[in-house]
């Protein structure tokens, strides 16, 4: 199952990158695109946490979730 979830996580990561690029290039909505991209990267991190994750996967998920939270707090503050 790990191979399948890794492939799905990779697809989510690529979709996140595409979302950021698309939102930025179709109207300069970089921040909104980044927020949606971070949501997709969180999905990728959660997929990587399926099964028996190693500490690297746990640390990566924590980093993505922290980054997402920081951007969200900054968006609501500014």
């Amino acid at each position, binding site marked *: 199952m790990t191979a399948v979830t890794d492939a799905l996580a990779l697809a989510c990561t690529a979709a996140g990158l595409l*979302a950021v690029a698309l*939102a930025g290039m*179709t109207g300069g*909505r970089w921040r909104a*695109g980044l927020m949606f991209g971070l949501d997709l990267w969180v*999905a990728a991190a*959660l997929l990587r946490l399926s099964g028996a994750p190693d500490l690297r996967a*746990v640390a990566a*998920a924590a980093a993505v*979730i922290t980054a997402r939270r920081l951007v969200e707090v900054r968006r609501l503050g500014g």
Partner: protein
Amino acid sequence: MPFSCVLPLHYLGVSVSAVEGFFSEATVRAIVDVLVRLVEAAGAIVIFAGASIGFVRFVAVAVRTRSAGAFVPLRLELGRYLALGLEFQLAGDILRTAIAPTFVEIGQLAAVAAIRTALNFFLAREIAEQRAELERDSSAT
């Protein structure tokens, strides 16, 4: 304590050794392992389905509109899928605690469960904030 002391199995015509064999540690471990895989697969399917649907809708909205606020409902929907997938994964974690034998495995499980619980908390809060934002926007127009 043997099952024969707890349940009057001989009255039911059930072999005590068969019941004890069925509830042996190896059998319970195998059953829980299958259940964990099923629950985690369900969570992964929900998360990936949400991400796919969200991305397709995001592309359509990005091409059609020029407003950054148009992405808020999409994030709200994706957040709901992530929260649901997380619930499945947390259920898998809880099931796995039944068969986590070493302290290292229990520690890893605790770290993953803590991350999932924190994310679930933040997601629920963000969904509420975004819903309030949408309601404010719709009442302003």
